């Protein structure tokens, strides 16, 4: 089993990453200690996008290669992706308050992350509303792929939209010269988050498989006592 190893690695990576981000990484000369938010904000933001890529790939798996596990993978990834997106939004907002003086601005990057969250939630709802997991999987795959096309478009259009109305007033942190002291904790945390994603994704996929088995068995249970209905052998006769 690969899972216990992954869990172990994940815990170690988090321990190391958290230690480094609080005790090794220096405070920023401009931002003070708030820069420590970065060590969770940036990995969460990365993961939010990676998760969608995983879903898009799985959707290709569903529609093109017709792999039976592909839609299981896509379905289990969605809530995790939504959670990471939520984390990126929350930490970003909490960082924005001391830095920009407001929790939220309709800045290009922020806005496209919010739209990503809505897309995750929409996909989850689609899965929830359709009873048949196979059909739901196919529908969600179509939507995921169209959304994958849409995301870069949003990113660009929002960039444009924003600068058109509100030039320069939104400032972004002009990336602190990536000093190794900052870079390392960030990378370790990123690895920890990635491991966390894989652990959760594996576990969720396993649950989803169980859920489908329960469904299958329940359907069987319903028909068990009723004779007469059946799958079929056919027998041609004159």
């Amino acid at each position, binding site marked *: 089993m690969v899972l216990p190893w992954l869990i172990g690695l994940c815990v170690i990576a988090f321990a190391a990453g958290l230690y480094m981000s609080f005790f090794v990484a220096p405070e920023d000369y401009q931002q003070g200690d708030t820069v420590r938010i970065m060590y969770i904000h940036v990995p969460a933001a990365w993961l939010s996008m990676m998760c969608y890529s995983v879903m898009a790939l799985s959707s290709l798996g569903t529609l093109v290669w017709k792999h039976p596990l592909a839609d299981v993978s896509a379905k289990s990834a969605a809530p995790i992706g939504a959670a990471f997106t939520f984390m990126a939004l929350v930490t970003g907002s909490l960082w924005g308050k001391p830095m920009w003086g407001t929790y939220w601005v309709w800045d290009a990057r922020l806005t496209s992350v919010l739209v990503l969250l809505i897309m995750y939630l929409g996909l989850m709802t689609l899965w929830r509303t359709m009873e048949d997991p196979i059909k739901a999987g196919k529908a969600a795959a179509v939507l995921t792929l169209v959304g994958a096309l849409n995301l870069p478009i949003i990113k660009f259009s929002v960039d444009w939209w924003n600068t058109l109305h509100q030039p320069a007033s939104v400032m972004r942190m002009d990336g602190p010269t990536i000093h190794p002291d900052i870079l390392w904790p960030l990378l370790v945390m990123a690895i920890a988050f990635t491991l966390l994603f894989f652990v959760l994704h594996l576990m969720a996929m396993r649950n989803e498989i169980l859920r489908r088995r329960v469904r299958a068995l329940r359907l069987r249970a319903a028909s068990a006592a009723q004779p007469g209905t*059946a799958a079929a*052998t056919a*027998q041609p006769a004159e």
Partner: protein
Amino acid sequence: MFQDLSFDLPSGTALVVTGANGIGKSSLLRTLAGLVALAGGTLWLEQGEADRSPAEHAHYFGHQNAVKAALSVLENLTFWQGFTSPVSASVFGATAMSPEAALDLLGIGHTTDLPAGFLSAGQTRRLALARLLVTPRPIWLMDEPTSALDKASEGQLLDLMNGHLTAGGMIITATHTDLALARTKILHLRTADPVSLHEEDLPA
């Protein structure tokens, strides 16, 4: 869904599919119509138009009538005539009927300009049937064609079906009642293994 199912059907013959409720008669017809993907196996049509799928050689006459209540009877029928394209097959000799002639033949010629919503269930069914006459296609897939028809209309339907067979067409029909068709083969579906049924039809 199906195990060991195979049959062949010469032109001019009807295949009557029988079997218990829920055994898969309707599913078989839908598969032949190309509405459900074939999980395995092949479907082969001789003497049809080579570049078109078997489903395109067929009319599907199912439980639903595909009739729009807001359109007039004639509008409904001319739409289907314009939308579906006829298919020729060497052994099949039926010709297209005009919508009016088809409606007259089916005894609803007097309703031509009424909104289809004013028709009774049986009349609506006949309007749906008229669709098969205005665009000639060699295969008719008919799922319980006699449902909602009273005895008189049932006889009329049988005449039509026999006419289609005489013209060299094929009919595959699922039914619970006996149909007096000219040349028929019977395919009786039976359950292979009662216990394992619902595993297979998961996708509900």
